[in-house]
């Protein structure tokens, strides 16, 4: 795979005080693919996403794509959506365009309207986040992430707190919109094995290192010994 079509992470390290969270992460993430980072809670998956997005500066290492340093333009979908309660759905979606760039009001309105239509949110455009369902909030957050036409969207546990049916509909939404808009997905999730169905690549993060990197099919065919308890958790009697 050519360097221009990958997001390269080299030696990414991050520590909080004495606690080393990322101990040197090397990854080549193909642009246009869906990569899911799995791992136990507290292993630094969200920290890795925040390092990629620039929210947290890594202590060491580099992120690049092609000849350019840093990640290409990326949007971030937060666990709790991070929508602004005092803004309507359309104001939330328009926010990145209203506050940055030079787009005129009419152009912003048109782009927001188009996107809301594509994500079946037209009826909710004047509603506040508190007035819509959890699934709709996810779509609004996705619309806000998409409005700037990013190359990469980072999803931080997008199905947290959702029932199995809604979980699948969120995964379905991510898969279908990725196909339609062509962005790269880097997602953190605990939903194993469900995420294997929509992912092209799986990265298993454990103890600050990537312990597995490859396709979900290979992972299921030959799972590393250490990963087996995570893939097939068993109840233990107390």
């Amino acid at each position: 795979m050519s360097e221009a079509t990958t997001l390269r992470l080299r030696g990414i390290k991050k520590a909080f005080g004495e606690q080393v969270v990322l101990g040197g992460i090397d990854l080549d993430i193909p642009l246009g693919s869906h990569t899911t980072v799995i791992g136990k809670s507290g292993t630094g998956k969200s920290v890795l996403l925040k390092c990629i997005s620039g929210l947290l500066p890594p202590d060491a290492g580099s992120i690049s794509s092609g000849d350019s340093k840093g990640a290409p333009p990326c949007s971030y979908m937060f666990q709790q959506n991070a929508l602004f309660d005092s803004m309507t759905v359309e104001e939330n979606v328009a926010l990145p365009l209203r506050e940055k760039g030079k787009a005129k009001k009419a152009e912003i309105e048109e782009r927001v309207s188009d996107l809301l239509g594509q994500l079946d949110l037209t009826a909710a455009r004047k509603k506040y986040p508190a007035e819509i369902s959890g699934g709709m909030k996810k779509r609004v957050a996705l619309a806000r992430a998409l409005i700037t036409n990013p190359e990469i969207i980072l999803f931080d546990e997008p199905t947290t707190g959702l029932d199995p049916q809604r979980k699948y509909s969120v995964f379905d939404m991510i898969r279908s919109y990725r196909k339609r808009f062509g962005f790269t997905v880097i997602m953190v999730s605990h939903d194993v094995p469900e995420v294997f169905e929509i992912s092209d690549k799986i990265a298993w993060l454990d103890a600050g290192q990537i312990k597995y990197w490859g396709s979900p099919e290979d992972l299921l065919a030959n799972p590393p010994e250490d990963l087996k308890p995570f893939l097939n958790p068993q109840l233990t009697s107390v």
Partner: protein
Amino acid sequence: MISKIGRQSIRLVSELGELASFSAKASVALPGQRHILEKLTRSLFEIGVRCVPITLIVGLFTGLVLGLQLYYVLTKFSSESLLGQAVALSIILEIGPVFTAIMIVGQAGSALSAEIGIQRNAEQIDALHTMQINPIGFLVSPRLWAAIVAFPILTTFFDLIGIYGGYLTGVELLGVDPGAYWNRIYDAVSLQNIFNGLVKALVFGVVTTLICSFQGYFTHRKADIPGARGVSQTTTRAVVYSSIAILVFDYLITSFQMAK
């Protein structure tokens, strides 16, 4: 014991440094924003218009009580005719700016700190970062500049209604001559007095808005416990620190004004 004092001192200096850096960023971030007028108008409504009723109520009752108290003090020296002057100078120079600032902190400052704190916990501030929107410029700067405008105006309202409250007690209730009341004010209150009072209001506006925003913005680091409890803790702290800062700065500014 010594190491504990040392740790506390380092923490205090570091916090003051963070506050100074935050203040500098908030002061200069407004020009980089889009829709400045819209943001300023909204902030002026929150800090200014919404605080008008409480300012007028407190101002009126402060004037009423002051008229009553000063009347009985001045009667002892047969100087009731000085009531207007005493009420006006007390309110314009001290009580007006201080009480107005404390009222605004109680209403708008606490709301500001809690709102920003909740936005921090809901990852909305991180979301602004990822959208390449300067969160301090978006959330804090418009409020800071609105406070610079609103505090002196609200203080003027307080002064006027307070002086009128003194009139109601002194003249209407206790029988002081109305001509003496207004003439004494006209003779004794200079433009410099009014200016000095408004300078205090402006400084209180800047200091309290920055303290309240700072506590909310860094609620995840300042609170002992994260989450709702943390927001409540930093909001309380914002009000307490702001109230103390008002009195400390009142003393400092008065000292400078008296020394001139």
